[in-house]
């Protein structure tokens, strides 16, 4: 087994004819946590959109290899089945669909794609309860409509809950820390930390270094104007905190 999980080479991509990523190279090893930092408009969210196959984003050049497969040929659902999970910056409300129904549908869709039978209801319920406790969600949470009427903190905890349910191989957190108070930030960080394993990698996209105090990354990248201009260890995040992005150049 190759030790690299994700290989991005010279990736150029954008939306509505506007190029946002202008040649990104990134290699992520199994079990590693990479942080991607950068100012607004650097292309951080475009990167997460391209990795998860958002239909309105177009890749114009370059390649992405995930677990030995050509990621760009896979649909969003195929990427999920292959173990990619995105914690959305703006989680979407789905009126009329309960968390339970949503997760049951998601888990059984993946099992079907893998040729497995549906999960038994008792087994599913046990998993649901276990993962709810993981993000400190109470009983009635499972019956609520997905993200409808959730506070900002609840939405982000719901993302981490879903991540724990789906047990991805590559978890991508897109600005999961934005708008969170310290308590919610700690719940999110504890959740991610307890999911860390030698087989599971993470990309933490963030604006601030705060989350990285709780989730220590192995590698920090600075994304600016569509390119990775600097790569370093966790100390790079601390330096950005002190000097700002302006002090960091390629």
């Amino acid at each position, binding site marked *: 087994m190759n030790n690299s999980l994700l290989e991005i080479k010279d990736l150029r991509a954008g939306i509505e004819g506007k190029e946002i990523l202008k040649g990104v190279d990134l290699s992520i090893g199994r079990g590693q946590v990479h942080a991607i930092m950068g100012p607004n408009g650097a292309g951080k969210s475009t990167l997460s959109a391209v990795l*998860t*196959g*958002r*239909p309105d984003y177009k890749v114009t050049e370059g390649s992405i290899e995930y677990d030995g497969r050509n990621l760009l040929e896979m*649909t*969003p*659902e195929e*990427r*999920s*089945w292959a173990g990619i*999970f*995105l914690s*959305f910056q703006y*989680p*979407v*409300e*789905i*009126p*009329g*669909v309960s968390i339970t*129904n*949503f997760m049951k*549908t*998601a*888990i059984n*869709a*993946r099992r079907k*794609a893998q040729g497995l039978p549906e999960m038994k209801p008792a087994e599913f319920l046990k998993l649901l309860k276990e993962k709810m406790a993981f993000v400190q969600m109470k009983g009635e949470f499972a019956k609520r409509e997905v993200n409808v009427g959730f506070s900002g903190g609840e939405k982000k905890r719901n993302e981490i809950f*879903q991540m724990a349910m*789906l047990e991805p191989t590559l978890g991508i957190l897109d600005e999961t820390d934005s708008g969170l108070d310290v308590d919610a930030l700690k719940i999110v960080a504890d959740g991610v930390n307890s999911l860390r394993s030698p087989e599971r990698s993470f990309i933490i996209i963030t604006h601030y270094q705060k989350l990285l105090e709780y989730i220590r990354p192995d590698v920090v990248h600075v994304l600016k104007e569509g390119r990775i201009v600097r790569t370093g260890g966790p100390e790079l995040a601390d330096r950005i905190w002190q000097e700002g992005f302006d002090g960091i150049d390629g």
Partner: protein
Amino acid sequence: MARKVFMIGRDEIPASVSLGAGEKLDWTLVCLPGTSAVVDLAISLDGPGAELDLAGLYLCPGSENVRMNVSVCHNSGGCISHQLFKGIVGGTARAEFDGLIYVARDAQKTKAYQQSHSILLSAGAWAESKPQLEIYADDVECSHGATTGFLGENELFYMRSRGIPEKDARRLQIISFLSPVLERLPEELRDDIISEC
């Protein structure tokens, strides 16, 4: 009164119904794919404490033309009416809901609610909700809501990113949208409708 389900185009629906004191009516109107029809229904709440629970569901995926004209008249005080209509309109189908709530001057302590929502599945489909309130009493609680829209692309992508295939995601959205009306139907009919979605 027991719950009653009418299949539009097959069952005869009374054009007008009067509810006396304390009488209750619980009706659901169902319009299945392939049915074009005009439904005229006038229900009056004529005695104190009468209650109406009316729902409707119309599935028009092809070239159907469905019109529902529903009027609910509160002629007596202390009555309650609930109306909930949901439609799925695709292809080149047309669906229209005209809903009148009338509250007479003496019908104090009236509670009247009406919701009418439809989802368009294609650019060629057309749906309209026309709620109308005529209220002459002053101590009443009335509300209405009407929406027409497409299935959201953001919702779709969110579901797909969790591994739910596009087709299943759209179906889940439609079933969820219809669920408050589906819940009122006998299991067999409900399962038939769900398998049509």
